[in-house]
């Protein structure tokens, strides 16, 4: 084959037309960070209004638009694309492949995202305002009673779904077909495993979301009655379909985060991941179980008791493989030689705080108790612990860990540590009190609250401003690193790091593994 490669093209068209997995990964990561800041800005509006009882800054209808868009943008614009970006950068290098299996589809997968989010954000300026029915958009609030912008919301969701499905197909095709010789499935890094399983989940359930919003579209515009009792339909059907997607969706969010943590903890423990095979099986079990627990989001909807019991037992069961993973991570650290650079700090933060979120998840799974927790701030606290202190901390760890490999420059460790501590403290000040107000009776999605909730809400808002500010520090650190960070040239940037991506030059060349590598046998893997 001719050796005709050149470096990247020049100018804007490089980015528009690139099929290079590193470029596409970079675009996903920057896009997701921009979305994270936008979604975070909406959160600041929410917390500013909730700083004190009374309506001070926004009207209730606009507040609902903020909560809705905050959820949609964070889930679909920040978290999911960020992990796809990581997948793009890392999977080919981790399996010794030159690029993703379908590079042109890869380009499309990314480029349909900015227009979709532009459309979603533009609904703020439409007559009737942006969607205000929560990121879970239950019918008939989201159908019969929705503002005109709901149609654009539906189109945006369709486009996001297509992007995710294409991205997942690409990941599966890459992992199944392009591993270097000798890289058997059970030799793959856990990050690749978790993404492979996540990608199957995505292919299975994103179409279900598409089905749900299509049915909404039909009810709104074409006279059907899927979700309207008047025509023989049922609003509860919407909830079943949505959560059949929605529950696997939260595992889609967290499994790649698990994969990241499984790479970083061994590196800074200088010890192989404990129980590799168990970790693979546990991830697969979580994925299977995620399909049969959806109605634990619907315990108060009036389900017959047999249904409630089934979903309660199945949900409680998910604690088992999740617990196995936490035990395995800690055992990986046990008797290692631990050091606490920024990536490791974020992973330890993940371990503690995600597990706390897991505990409140277990509490929520208990159906009769959930009658008192459902739709309160206790639930809000739970999912922010697992999604922010879980997925976002993991993503942050990933950036600190791999950025030096990607750009050949080291970030400022002291700024990184500062970022960690401010994030950790700010996050907990924001969300720990929300457990209290939820248990004390404060519902979610309200712009104003009774006086007994005031002090904890003020605390939570202060925490949010602190946490938000620390993300700007992170942004500064990342840019300063790329532009003027201390140069790194060792292939193994971190002495404990293992994996094929640490065998290529630093910074990683534009094309890597054009010839498949010899797959080494790292200590301790099967």
């Amino acid at each position, binding site marked *: 084959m001719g050796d005709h490669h050149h470096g990247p093209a020049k100018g804007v068209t490089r980015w528009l037309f690139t099929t290079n997995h590193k470029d596409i990964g970079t675009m996903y990561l920057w896009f997701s960070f921009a979305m994270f800041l936008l979604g975070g800005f909406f959160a600041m509006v929410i917390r500013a209004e909730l700083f004190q009882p009374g309506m001070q800054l926004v009207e*209730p209808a606009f507040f609902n638009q903020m909560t809705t868009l905050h959820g949609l943008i964070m889930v679909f614009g920040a978290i999911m694309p960020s992990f796809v970006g990581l997948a793009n950068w890392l999977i080919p290098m981790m399996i010794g492949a030159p690029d993703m299996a379908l590079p042109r589809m890869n380009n499309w997968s990314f480029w349909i995202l900015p227009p979709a989010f532009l459309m979603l954000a533009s609904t703020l300026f439409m007559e009737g305002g942006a969607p*205000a029915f929560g990121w879970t958009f239950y019918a008939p609030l989201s159908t019969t009673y929705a503002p005109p912008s709901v149609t654009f919301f539906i189109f945006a969701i369709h486009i996001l779904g297509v992007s995710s499905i294409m991205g997942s197909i690409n990941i599966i095709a890459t992992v199944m077909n392009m591993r270097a010789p000798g890289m058997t499935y059970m030799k793959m890094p856990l990050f690749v495993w978790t993404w492979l399983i996540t990608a199957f989940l995505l292919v299975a359930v994103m179409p279900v979301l598409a089905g749900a919003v299509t049915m909404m579209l039909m009810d709104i515009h074409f006279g059907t009655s899927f979700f309207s009792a008047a025509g023989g339909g049922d609003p509860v059907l919407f909830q079943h379909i949505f959560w059949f997607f929605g529950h696997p969706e939260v595992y889609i969010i967290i499994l790649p985060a698990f994969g990241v943590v499984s790479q970083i903890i061994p590196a800074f423990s200088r010890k192989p991941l404990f*129980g590799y095979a168990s970790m693979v099986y546990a991830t697969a079990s979580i994925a299977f179980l995620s399909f049969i627990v959806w109605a634990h989001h619907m315990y108060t909807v009036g389900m017959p008791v047999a249904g409630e019991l089934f979903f309660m037992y199945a949900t409680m069961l998910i604690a088992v493989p999740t617990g196995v993973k936490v035990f395995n991570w800690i055992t990986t650290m046990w008797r290692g030689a*631990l*050091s606490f650079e920024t990536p490791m700090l974020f992973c330890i933060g993940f371990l503690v705080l995600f597990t706390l979120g897991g505990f409140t998840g277990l509490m929520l799974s208990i159906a*009769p108790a959930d009658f*008192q927790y459902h739709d309160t701030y206790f639930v809000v606290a739970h999912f922010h612990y697992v999604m922010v202190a879980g997925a976002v901390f993991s993503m942050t760890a990933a950036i600190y860990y791999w950025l030096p490999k990607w750009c050949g420059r080291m970030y400022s460790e002291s700024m990184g540590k500062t970022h960690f501590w401010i994030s950790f403290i700010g996050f907990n000040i924001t969300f720990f009190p929300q457990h209290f107000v939820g248990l004390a009776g404060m519902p979610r999605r309200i712009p104003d609250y009774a006086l007994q909730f005031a002090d904890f809400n*003020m605390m939570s808002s*202060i925490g949010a401003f602190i946490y938000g500010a620390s993300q700007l520090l992170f942004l500064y650190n990342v840019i300063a690193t790329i532009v003027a960070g201390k140069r790194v040239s060792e292939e193994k940037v971190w002495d404990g790091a293992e994996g094929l991506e640490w065998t290529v030059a630093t910074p990683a060349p534009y094309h890597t593994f054009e010839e498949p590598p010899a797959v080494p046998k790292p*200590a301790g893997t099967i």
Partner: protein
Amino acid sequence: MGRVFSTAALALFAPLAGAENQVNMSPGVTEIGANIFELHMLIMWICVVIGVLVFGAMFYSIYAHRQSKGHQASQFHESTRVEVAWTVVPFLILVAMAFPATSTLLEVYDNDASELDILITGYQWKWKYEYLDESGETVSFFSNLATPQEEIYNTRNKGENYLLEVDEPLVIPTNTKVRFLITANDVIHSWWVPEIAVKRDAIPGFINEAWTRVPEEGIYRGQCTELCGAYHGFMPVEVHAVSRDDFDNWIAAKRGIAAVQTALAEQTLSVDELMDQGKRVYGAACLACHGAGGEGGVGKAIAGSPVVLGDIAAHMALVANGVSGTAMQAFGAQLSAVDMAAVLTYQRNAFGNNTGDVVQPGDVTGAKNG
């Protein structure tokens, strides 16, 4: 600034009991609420114990196995025995948890005969309560947020029960099994009173049931717990549990009021009476959408409205029958003849409208009967 510091201090010394800064669920006043609370505490303590063990091990490792301390890394990386152990033991703990969880859930779903049935309908944005009785005048009324807009918009100090007070509470007798039949008029709502541990979604077109038996007299407050539109946070629930005797008197009076309304409907009321009552009705039923000054918002402006300034019968018909396909509900069934007459009079004379028109309850009943 002072508030910020005192809040920080509170964080350190927050009392565990008491309504303000409550950190835990309340066991409430019912047996089932107490059972739910016990279950909640049991699961929480199990999690605390597990957390202490697991994080204890991790923090020990962070301390003792630091590279900077010179600790050398071992290379062990698997153990089937250990994997089996920490799969089986958590599984057994979960099985143990499932027993009390199941029995408490079965109590929630109890269908035994009730002594009093109440139909609860969620509206945007208020509740309607209807006492289902075999015969006699049905007692049915709306329960609106009573907190004044001035408190919400910070021009007046907030009262003790800010956002948790209503004009017409739900009254139930103590020590009586009360069955709630819950539905909704428009979108999904959810009826929740934490201290009696009842929460059930209100779904338009469908009926859900829940039950309670309240042993202790008292006032119990809750809120809507399903996002239902702009004023989701402004439709509280207030339940008064009173003695059987007090309840009987109350409901007899309510039935009597219905009769009195019928009598009042035959009277002629003064302009002042109509305007006063009209302002009250406007505040409860119209203000949220039409504005405190009739300036409009979600709904059209009342000030200068051609409908309000035009033919009285047409104005009345619109308020009574609503406007199909919009947020304007049919208020005919929601307002008594007196209230309807009052609010029409108020709208026609307030906000600079000054038509000088007066609508009497008799005009309303006359229109209703065709």
